């Protein structure tokens, strides 16, 4: 009898442990659910962007073969796509800041980086075709920055945001994680002789390292 009472007294530890495990399971379930939801929404958008990207590529082929006077329309399409991609990129950055239970977001990010690279190449072709009517500003940043680099990147991304705001449809802004482990990105980094991040590449010509204010960067634009 005494033994029974003793045992019952200590059951409370088991009850508390069970309740805590349940709370943890609920938390992890919700975490996975929200993460899947985010990845899914990024993935859904990506599918649309993939179509948009292919559309742009085909338009480029078409303009190269057929009609030089259609530049205006092509540039407009290019900007719409670039802006959408830029906004979605910021969303991915925000999701990436939250701790993740899986690596799915990084995979999605890589797909976006590829899409941006494709858009950049499209933009280069378009510029050549249409007589350089706009500027490309490619912002190579580090995906694993230390404190100093993180501070610099924080400032630079805001400065570039201001440059873009001021210049409007004169600038295609393409933030690209330079050390995310993609062959095409590594190739571009080597090609333009970029030896550290963050770096800002303006019109495939000028490379700026470190922090430069908005007016200075605007000075390099056409």
């Amino acid at each position, binding site marked *: 009898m005494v033994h029974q009472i003793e045992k019952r*007294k*200590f059951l*409370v*530890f088991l*009850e*508390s*442990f069970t*309740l*805590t495990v349940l*709370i*943890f399971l609920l*938390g*992890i379930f*919700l*975490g996975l659910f*929200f993460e899947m939801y*985010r990845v899914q929404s990024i993935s859904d958008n990506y599918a649309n962007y993939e179509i948009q990207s292919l559309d742009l590529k085909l338009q480029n082929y078409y303009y190269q073969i057929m009609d030089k006077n259609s530049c205006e329309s092509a540039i407009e399409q290019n900007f719409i796509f670039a802006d959408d991609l830029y906004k979605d990129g910021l969303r991915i950055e*925000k*999701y990436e*800041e*939250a*701790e*993740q*239970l899986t690596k799915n977001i990084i995979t999605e990010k890589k797909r976006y980086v590829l899409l941006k690279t494709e858009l950049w190449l499209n933009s280069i072709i378009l510029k050549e075709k249409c007589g350089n009517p706009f500027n490309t500003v490619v912002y190579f940043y580090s995906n694993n920055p230390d*404190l*100093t680099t*993180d*501070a*610099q990147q*924080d*400032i630079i991304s*805001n*400065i570039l945001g*201001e440059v873009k705001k001021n210049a409007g449809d004169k600038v295609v802004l393409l933030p690209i994680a330079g050390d995310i482990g993609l062959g095409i990105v590594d190739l571009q980094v080597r090609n333009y002789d970029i030896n550290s991040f963050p770096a800002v590449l303006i019109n495939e010509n000028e490379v700026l390292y*470190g*922090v430069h*204010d908005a007016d200075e960067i605007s000075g390099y634009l056409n």
Partner: protein
Amino acid sequence: MDGINYVYFFMFFMGIFLVNLFIILHKKNQYRLFDSPKVTKIYSVSFLVPAYNEEGNLENTVKAIIDIDYPENKKEIIIINDGSKDSTLKIAKKLEKKHSNIIVLDKKNSGKADSLNKGIEIAKGELLAVVDADSYPKRDALMKMIGHFDDNKTGAVTSRVLVKNKTNLLCRYQILDYSIIAWTRKLLDFVDSVYVTNGPLSVYRTDYVRKIGGFDPKNVTEDIEITWHLLSKGYQTRMSYSAIVHTNVPTSLKEWIKQRVRWNLGGIQTLVKYWRDMFKKRAFGFFVVPYVALSFILAVLGFILLLRYLWIKGASKVYSLFFVQNGFKYLKYINLDISFTVLLFFGITFFILAIVHYKMGFKSSEAGNKSILNILSYTLIYRPLYIIPLLLSFYKMLTGDIRWYTK
């Protein structure tokens, strides 16, 4: 997932587990909190009152002990003057002359534990009631405690400490603090885990205390050490929630820190002395020792993780200012657009459970039914102060600087 997240998970798991434990214990035992065993035997009791520079309090403390409802022929009062530099001894002698059951011991200053041991040497009672010289037991306190000693396993019984001096904001916070301390201690009583028998009023079985060699003079919190010593020898320690003693609490932050540093140092010293009993001896080894160790670990870990979080979120923003003259213009400030994360969920759950836990504790004590604002203020303003004495204690422990506490 980063390795650091496992540390966060561990911290939240243990924190939520402990808060759940107290909530469940309360739910199961809320109608038994104030129960005390029926008195079947009147034991002879020796009150031990160690006093060091207590000229302002001693007379009232002794008066409160004299006034306790207990047969006169069953109680003796031993005042031990620990080399006071004020008129404590004079007051004690005056009281000795006036009351036949008061004995005064005078000795060189050697600390509270040693004073108590001197008292134990001459005590005639079956029970020892230790009363701090600045504390005032209620008249019925002893009768609410002695019933526990009918169980042969009981080695000590402690009481509920309430704040006497309610002079300023710090004292009012301590009213809440003492409420929570007493309430959680009572809840731990339901699982045989009372791990402190407080200084203001605790009663011990004389035989058992003598058997274990009395109080440890090397420990700065002799009341924690003797409790662990008794538990480690297989004796039980109990708490009587309805036995009340009033005490004076620190009125300045400096005094408060000094007191809490002493508590923490004593806790760490005791933990170091008894850590080998971990997972060995029933509730003591399986709960008390890990629980106290965890309390220290979680507090320090929580503080470090908070600093890390602030560093990650804030340092780069502040650091950014150095890069551009008009850096403020380019700062993103605080981003309130928070994404759902598992850690955020655990953090909010832990916080809500802690608030519920405090609410229950206050409601079951003299603090009463406190508003959510009062509870938030206690949780967010007073409780974080705990880290100051804790870090100071670790520093003092590591540097061996505990002389000024042991006198």
